[in-house]
């Protein structure tokens, strides 16, 4: 196979040969190659098929703007689709393949779409919703649903592996005075100037080498610059893209750590996602060369002029033998010269008629000529050219390559992320960055400077600007004027094709043609944002880096306006794609979110607990014996509690220490029920409302001393309640002398419940007198010692309706407490019980939890009206009386039994009247359980009007999700021991 690699050119390491596979065939390249340069060197012209029409596509650029050479790298779980071949560094063993083609890019069956172009015009997908054009056949969504899968398959690019990503990613953070984006002449000058002025500088470069576009120069060597930067202590980050700018000079970086290595160390992350907090940002991101729209301007062999310069001088690849360069500006002539010196036959078509340029006459210049049409399909055979005055084919030039330069667009993307609109510069036919009050300065060609000395001057001026803004200096500075070419650019965006059905591409990646833009205009999509969405111009990987301006200019022409009047779409992060893996970093699998365990977590597991997640907490769910199922187990556990005694880890409840002389007044204001008369040594169940009168949370508060309380909250609301108490004390009631501290982690808690609970505790405490009915009555609290001199707090509190105690010890003593309680509970045939049994017991008793208190329920709805004091004002007391909350049509807490006691139901069941089963019905079931005590299923929930209204009515439970329906009756929520005789025993 003939190679396009030529001797004596390029900075690749010819001593280090790398082998790689492209579409299952083996090829060779060199260290320093990109996949694109290696493919070009191996004379591979077609690297993919286009998005809609499946036209053969080649390599258009040498950088991030690439919109043709999107390929798939790797295989199996490491398959990475839509990778730009132009930025993928070559490594030994790299596997790559073309996309969007079957069976391959050279022979693609779907290429027929090319001839069905009018069916795939702009807005095709949207129109399919309305029926298949042109006859709107099969109008309606069904036809869309039918065709969608075929359309998606046909129009997709690469596909993801669908397997878990085996690579590791990492999030990293850094701080600096100045971050410089881009290591071209401007960025390097800025960084050096800043480091010399003692600023702490990070220099970011997306390429593997520093130098920017100088890497396309044949005599450029970056080693001296690199040494200088390093000696000044500048942190250089190569292979790192600044993908977004955010508030307060925060910059998002993506560092590709191992994407260029064939067998990376598994202990090193593949990519690093950096958050840099800088004091100032200098952006020298360069400029991007545009193409020109004309018929068949996408045939493999079309490329930007600057790209061919890169391939020649950096990679030693001469991309064509007979090259036609089409331009409207001065920037191409050095390249034309070098290409012809390297052995190519070069012709330059310059759309301008009146200009002077110095050359050595090694190539021909055709003044006033533009490209008109490319002949060829898989490669360029020849180019039809036209005079600029009268557009039509005037003659044909035989060639194998067409290089385009329609002007340069400064990379203003990062500034655009900050909401700064660029301004159109008529002299240079490009958008230039506007000024911003934020600490961001644009330098180099990203502010429209075309020659190197101006770029260097702008870099130094940029750092002076930064020093002034940071208050370090007050030095005058000025930026060179935009431009820098000898002859002015002549705007040239499209060369119109005279025949119908042209294929003049504006956006290569999405197959958006000039006709599509005109169609969008005809159909009324004239705003740039509409144009973008309707035609997909400027979407996906490349975000229209090459083609956007062409699209704008066409719309401007159609609207008879100037480009700045049409506007520009807003660039949003990321500048180039960021992998999902990098975004998630280490927050995957078990590390997706924090895991909270109680101090007796291992003890629970060792004693047979199956665990369940409750918020972030792992809590015991049930403790199965031998072959028990979940229901076997919880029914046994709940029955055991009612019969003798059970032990349950309740450590996950929120615990707050409330201390200070105004603690009682504070509690009296935040709870709806009275706390002013609570004695030391007593606990009280309390309900907190929000400002708007809705229930926020419930829990208990224990008065340990005159000015000290121990508050428990529900597991789920613990953090919210603490923040709320702090807010009240710090913002509203700043005169109250109270301190609140979370002690959730400091105390391990357990519930000992059942008729034998007192006997068990008796055996566990140092002084058995402390737990007698007299010394520790219902809602009594004591601070005492467990055997072994372990300090503990015991409150006689019941959630199950049985005689029960909550025992708290310092977390370090959790296991000792569990051992002690368990040894003694076993003497009474007691059990360990989990959340499922806890739920069963509380549903039987009619206790509400988060399932009922869902942020919509008032204290009256929950049937707890007697908890609302009438003798005092408290948070929510005024608002709970407002009209809508007093409506007698509100849903009130009730219990549910199935009419046929053999039937079951689920939480989420909608309660309806018998002959009116629809909509939201008249209520809902929120919690259900099998009741071991009653011997059938029971539920808690809400029904409009409550028990009084529906007591004797047969209702229906509708569960359309599970395709279930059952007859229900409404009962009191207190389904067992309504008088509470057991608790007081």
């Amino acid at each position: 196979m003939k190679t396009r690699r030529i001797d004596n050119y390029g900075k690749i390491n010819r001593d280090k040969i790398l082998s790689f596979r492209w579409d299952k065939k083996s090829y060779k390249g060199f260290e320093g190659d990109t996949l694109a340069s290696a493919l070009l060197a191996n004379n591979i012209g077609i690297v993919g098929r286009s998005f809609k029409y499946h036209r053969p596509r080649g390599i258009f650029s040498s950088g991030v703007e690439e919109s043709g050479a999107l390929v798939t790298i790797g295989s199996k779980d490491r398959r990475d689709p839509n990778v730009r071949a132009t930025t993928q560094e070559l490594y030994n063993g790299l596997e790559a393949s073309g996309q969007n083609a079957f069976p391959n890019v050279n022979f693609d069956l779907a290429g027929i779409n090319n001839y069905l172009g009018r069916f795939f015009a702009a807005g095709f997908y949207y129109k399919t919703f309305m029926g298949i054009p042109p006859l709107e056949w099969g109008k309606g969504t069904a036809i869309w649903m039918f065709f969608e899968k075929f359309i998606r398959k046909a129009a997709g690019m690469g596909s993801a592996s669908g397997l878990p990503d085996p690579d590791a990613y990492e999030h990293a953070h850094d701080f600096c005075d100045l971050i410089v984006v881009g290591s071209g002449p401007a960025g390097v000058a800025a960084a050096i100037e800043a480091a010399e002025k003692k600023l702490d500088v990070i220099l970011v470069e997306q390429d593997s080498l520093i130098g920017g576009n100088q890497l396309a120069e044949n005599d450029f060597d970056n080693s001296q610059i690199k040494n200088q930067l390093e000696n000044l202590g500048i942190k250089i980050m190569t292979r790192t893209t600044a993908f977004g700018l955010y508030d307060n000079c925060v910059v998002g970086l993506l560092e590709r750590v191992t994407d260029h290595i064939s067998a990376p160390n598994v202990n090193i992350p593949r990519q690093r996602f950096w958050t840099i907090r800088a004091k100032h940002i200098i952006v020298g991101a360069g400029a991007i060369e545009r193409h020109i729209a004309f018929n068949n301007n996408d045939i493999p062999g079309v490329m930007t002029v600057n790209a061919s310069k890169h391939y020649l001088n950096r990679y030693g690849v001469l991309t064509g033998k007979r090259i036609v360069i089409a331009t409207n500006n001065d920037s191409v002539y050095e390249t034309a010269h070098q290409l012809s010196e390297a052995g190519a036959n070069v012709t330059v078509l310059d759309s301008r008629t009146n200009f002077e340029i110095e050359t050595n006459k090694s190539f021909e210049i055709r003044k006033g000529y533009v490209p008109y049409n490319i002949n060829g399909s898989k490669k360029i055979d020849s180019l039809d050219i036209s005079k600029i005055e009268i557009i039509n084919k005037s003659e044909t030039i035989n060639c194998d390559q067409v290089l385009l330069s329609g002007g340069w667009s400064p990379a203003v993307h990062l500034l655009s992320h900050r909401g700064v609109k660029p301004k159109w510069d008529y002299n240079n036919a490009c958008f230039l960055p506007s000024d911003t009050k934020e600490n961001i300065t644009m330098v180099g060609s990203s502010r429209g400077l075309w020659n190197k000395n101006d770029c260097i001057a702008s870099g130094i001026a940029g750092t002076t600007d930064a020093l002034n803004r940071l208050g370090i200096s007050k030095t005058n500075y000025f930026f060179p004027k935009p431009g820098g070419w000898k002859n002015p650019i002549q705007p040239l965006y499209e060369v119109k094709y005279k025949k119908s059905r042209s294929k003049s591409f504006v956006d290569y990646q999405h197959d958006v043609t000039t006709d599509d833009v005109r169609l969008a205009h005809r159909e009324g999509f004239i705003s740039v944002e509409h144009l973008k969405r309707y035609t997909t111009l400027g979407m996906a990987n490349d975000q229209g880096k090459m083609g956007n301006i062409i699209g704008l200019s066409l719309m401007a022409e159609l609207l008879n306006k100037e480009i700045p009047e049409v506007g520009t779409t807003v660039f949003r992060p990321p500048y180039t794609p960021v992998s999902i893996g990098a975004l998630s970093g280490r927050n995957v699998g078990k590390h997706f979110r924090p895991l909270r365990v109680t101090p007796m977590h291992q003890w629970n597991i060792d004693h047979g607990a199956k665990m369940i997640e409750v918020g972030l907490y792992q809590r015991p769910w049930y403790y199965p014996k031998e072959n028990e199922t979940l229901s076997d187990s919880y029914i046994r556990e709940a029955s055991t509690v009612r019969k003798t005694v059970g032990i349950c880890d309740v450590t996950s409840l929120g615990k707050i220490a409330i201390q200070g002389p105004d603690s009682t007044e504070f509690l009296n204001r935040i709870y709806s029920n009275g706390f002013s008369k609570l004695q030391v040594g007593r606990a009280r169940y309390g309900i907190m409302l929000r400002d708007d009168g809705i229930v926020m949370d419930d829990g208990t508060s224990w008065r340990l001393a005159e000015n000290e309380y121990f508050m428990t909250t529900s597991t789920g609301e613990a953090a919210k309640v603490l923040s709320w108490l702090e807010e009240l004390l710090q913002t509203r009631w700043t005169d109250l002398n109270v301190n609140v501290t979370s002690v959730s982690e400091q105390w391990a808690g357990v519930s000992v419940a059942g008729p034998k609970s007192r006997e068990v505790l008796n055996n566990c405490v140092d002084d058995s007198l402390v737990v007698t009915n007299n010394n520790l009555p219902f809602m009594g609290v004591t601070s005492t010692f467990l055997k072994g001199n372990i300090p503990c707090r015991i409150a006689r509190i019941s959630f199950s309706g049985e005689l029960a105690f909550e025992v708290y010890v310092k977390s370090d003593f959790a296991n000792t407490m569990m051992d002690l309680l368990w040894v003694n509970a076993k003497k009474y045939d007691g059990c360990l019980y989990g959340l499922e049994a806890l739920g069963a017991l509380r549903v039987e008793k009619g206790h509400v939890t988060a399932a009922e208190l869902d942020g919509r329920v008032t204290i009256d709805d929950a049937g707890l009206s007697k908890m609302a004091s009438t003798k005092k004002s408290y948070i929510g007391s005024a608002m709970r009386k407002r009209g809508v909350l007093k409506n007698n049509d509100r849903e009130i807490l009730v219990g549910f039994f199935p009419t046929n006691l053999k039937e079951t139901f689920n939480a989420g069941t909608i309660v309806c009247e018998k002959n009116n089963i629809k909509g939201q019905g008249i209520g809902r079931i929120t919690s259900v359980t099998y009741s071991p005590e009653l011997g059938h299923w029971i539920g808690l929930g809400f029904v409009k009007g409550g028990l009084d209204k529906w007591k004797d009515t047969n209702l229906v439970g509708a569960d359309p999700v599970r395709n279930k329906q059952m007859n229900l009756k409404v009962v009191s929520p207190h389904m067992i021991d309504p008088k509470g005789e057991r608790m007081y025993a």
Partner: protein
Amino acid sequence: MIRINCPYCGERDHSEFSYGGDATINYPSLDASEKEWTQAIFFRKNIKGFQFETWHHSNGCRMWLVVERSTVTHEIKSVKPCHPDLQKVVENNK
């Protein structure tokens, strides 16, 4: 990313904080009428420009702060503790 200069901890990412709400509300006394409470709870100005708002340094020192922030640019002009006594302490330590 918004950076908030906590008077106690120093400049930190906004992800360490929780947003509270309008810092200019004068909450009525607990025994005030439903009408006054309705006004305090539900009626808000939709300010374009600088506004005073509360933030809680929930993953830091737990201090509630009054932050003067532009709703247009996120620029922050001032950060103070909500509690007047803490405000004095901060002022005195400047």
